[in-house]
């Protein structure tokens, strides 16, 4: 479902990772490991199409990628339901109300549905950000530290949703995380793919 061959990524004009290849089949998860600054976020942003790759190919079904990072895109002046239904509408989801209902239950947000985004705690915001993934129905997820500021119970909620809903329905995910999600998944350590310090590339960045 996701096939990456010979991918090299740049961050701020500097090549950070080179020659990465992997395949993620439907129903599978790939966990990215590596020390801070190795380029996990850069790789995920490149996979999601937010920044161009230096070289290599990324193959996944068109319009099926979804990206999430520590910034959840939650509007403080909108309620939990309004935030979620906005993203559902943007992604052209039909049967919004029932899908919304399921997502709210899966991430334990049902009691908070009419609260304004700005009044949520950090962990509740994170859960709302993850519930967005359940609402938009994308198959290929690129998740950057999805469990930051979640307590152990919420981490389990997220892992359960990922396993029982997303993966069970043929989705897949690439996750950068430092904790154990309790999923049986192959891990990819990015350390061997670190670019040499004098590697060239991304020379047009100086003009942008």
């Amino acid at each position, binding site marked *: 479902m996701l096939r990456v061959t010979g991918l090299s990524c740049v961050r701020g004009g500097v090549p950070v990772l080179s020659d990465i290849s992997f395949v993620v089949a439907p129903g599978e998860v790939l966990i990215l490991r590596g020390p801070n600054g190795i380029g996990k976020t850069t790789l995920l942003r490149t996979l*999601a199409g937010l*920044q161009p790759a230096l070289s290599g190919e990324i193959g996944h079904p068109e319009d099926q990628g979804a*990206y999430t990072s*520590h910034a*959840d*895109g939650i*509007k403080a002046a*909108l309620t939990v339901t309004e935030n979620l239904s906005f993203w559902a509408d943007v992604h052209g989801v039909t049967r919004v109300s029932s899908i919304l209902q399921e997502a709210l239950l899966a991430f334990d947000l049902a009691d908070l549905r009419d609260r304004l985004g700005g009044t949520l705690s950090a962990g509740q915001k994170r859960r709302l950000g993850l519930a967005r993934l359940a609402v938009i129905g994308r198959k290929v997820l690129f998740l950057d530290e999805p469990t930051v500021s979640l307590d152990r119970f919420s981490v389990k909620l997220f892992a359960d949703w990922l396993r029982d809903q997303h993966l069970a329905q043929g989705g897949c995910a690439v996750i950068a995380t430092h904790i154990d999600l309790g999923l049986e998944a192959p891990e990819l350590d990015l350390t061997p793919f670190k670019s040499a310090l004098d590697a060239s590339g991304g020379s047009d960045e100086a003009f942008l």
Partner: protein
Amino acid sequence: MIALLLRDLRLAVRAGGGFGLGLAFFLIVVVLVPFGVGPETELLSRIAPGILWVASLLAALLSLDRIFALDFEDGSLALLATSPLPMEGVALIKATAHWITTGLPLTIAAPILGFLLSLAPEAYVYLLVSLLLGTPALSMIGTFGAALTVGLRRGGLLLSLLVLPLYVPTLIFGAEAVRRGADGLDPTGALMLLGGITAGTVALLPFATAAVLRINLR
């Protein structure tokens, strides 16, 4: 796309959205002018078209930096970039939302303020028409400027410096149309040029805005 427009409008009217800020600024600037130049009706009515246009320009400028900055900070912009919406569409919708919350109220309020500046009675209709034709260009050019400066700290000031020179053609033909209307001359030429500028910016700038946003999101 409609969902994005509705969300932006809803955010604008909720607490902290800044709806009405531009309108209040417009009101205050126009009210201050008679205090500055003195109570000479003849002088006021001669400078009224220019004052009203300059004031609406500045009022439109006031809320430009919010167009993309807030979405950039909370991550929505990156999420929109990975959504099925084309970035060109996002740019156009953002400009439309800005126009509905700024340009349209300014247009409606301008005739009332024209009265304060003793604008010539014949000019009211042209004031309304010229603002209606011209303010969409202000929003569209401003959206482009906001995309250029998104992610920059203190981008607001740079944004004003970038955008104000681009507002000059709109200002010239907008004020000229009202002036000609006030003098009983035919303002059709100026109005057509004004409409041309708006049509041109709406046709071309969404593409430029989308390209700039993609670069700034890297």
